[in-house]
């Protein structure tokens, strides 16, 4: 769920509720103390004791204790509600993350066969003594490895920039380029810059380079 739709941290309303509960508790306790003192005759000059005074004192103490317990319960309830909200927020983050991982896994599965086919062809060329085939096989392996390593990082992790650099830079020779990996890398780079604008300075030349390579790839090499 996007940040905007989250039940965001309602610190102000919670503080208000705590203040109201505390205020009511203080007022009620003060009232009870007043009743108790009045019942005990402390507010008058007449200090004579009676059953009625005892009952008033008992009611006062009972009410004060009851109010205190109620206030405690209210505070606990608010704490629990906050915890539930935090748990829900964490769960939402996990769900989003897992959905992204599933999409990426599907992508990996779809790309792997053609990638290994390319490695096979390149390796076969290398077996014939073609040095360029050997290099192409190595680069194919490196691109795929770098791309996997990149996917292991969070989509907004600045560390992704280094992997994008290795992939895009390694494809500067279009003989070693792979259109799908390059497009996916470009997409990842664009997302990264959108989430972290401070990386734009480093990312922009890479994006330009990726577009240059894509425009020069008349036919996909793979």
């Amino acid at each position, binding site marked *: 769920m996007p940040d905007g739709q989250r039940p965001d941290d309602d610190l102000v309303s919670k503080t208000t509720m705590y203040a109201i509960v505390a205020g009511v508790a203080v007022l009620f306790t003060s009232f009870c103390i007043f009743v108790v003192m009045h019942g005990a005759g402390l507010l008058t000059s007449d200090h004579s004791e009676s059953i009625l005074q005892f009952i008033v004192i008992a009611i006062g103490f009972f009410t004060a204790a009851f109010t205190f317990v109620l206030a405690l319960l209210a505070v606990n309830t608010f704490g629990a509600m906050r915890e539930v909200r935090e748990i829900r927020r964490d769960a939402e983050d996990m769900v989003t993350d897992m959905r992204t991982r599933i999409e990426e896994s599907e992508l990996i599965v779809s790309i792997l066969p053609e990638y290994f086919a390319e490695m096979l062809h390149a390796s076969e060329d290398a077996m014939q003594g073609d*040095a360029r085939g*050997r*290099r192409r096989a*190595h*680069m194919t392996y*490196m691109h795929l*490895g*770098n791309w996997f*390593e990149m996917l292991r990082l969070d989509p907004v992790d600045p560390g992704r*920039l*280094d992997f994008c*650099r*290795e992939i*895009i*830079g*390694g494809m*500067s*020779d279009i003989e*070693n380029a792979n259109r799908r990996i390059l497009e996916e890398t470009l997409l990842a780079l664009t997302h990264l810059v959108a989430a972290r604008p401070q990386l734009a*300075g*480093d*990312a*922009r*030349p*890479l994006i330009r*380079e990726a577009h240059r390579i894509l425009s020069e790839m008349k036919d996909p090499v793979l």
Partner: protein
Amino acid sequence: MINGKPLLWIDDDVRYLRPQVKNLQDEEITVEVERNVDQGRAKVMNSEGAYAGVILDVMMSPGEAYRNIDNRGGLITGLLFVREMHMLGLLASLKITVLSHRNDVGAEEEIKSLGVDYCHKADHAGIRIVDFVRDQFGG
């Protein structure tokens, strides 16, 4: 060790580095790896003959030293490094070899024109790295 000195390898490409360094260590060639170009630069500046040589990547995070220079998003950080070492006159006393995945003809020609060898990682992966290092730095 190569002639009693370690090799300094400045590269942030972990996937390539890890197996190559292991191969070199298996042959008892000591390698100091520096993944951060700023720290690698500082080591080279203060090396005073401490290293048998330096292997340098081209594509690296630009770091703080080269951030304000047009490094094309880190695609030519190694070229900027070589240029700086050339300007400081350090290339005469320290052997630097560029080892990169990048096929940038312009960068390769400029690096070579400064007297620095430019080689491709794919050609020297696996156990071939040992012969490559011995060819380049002796030992």
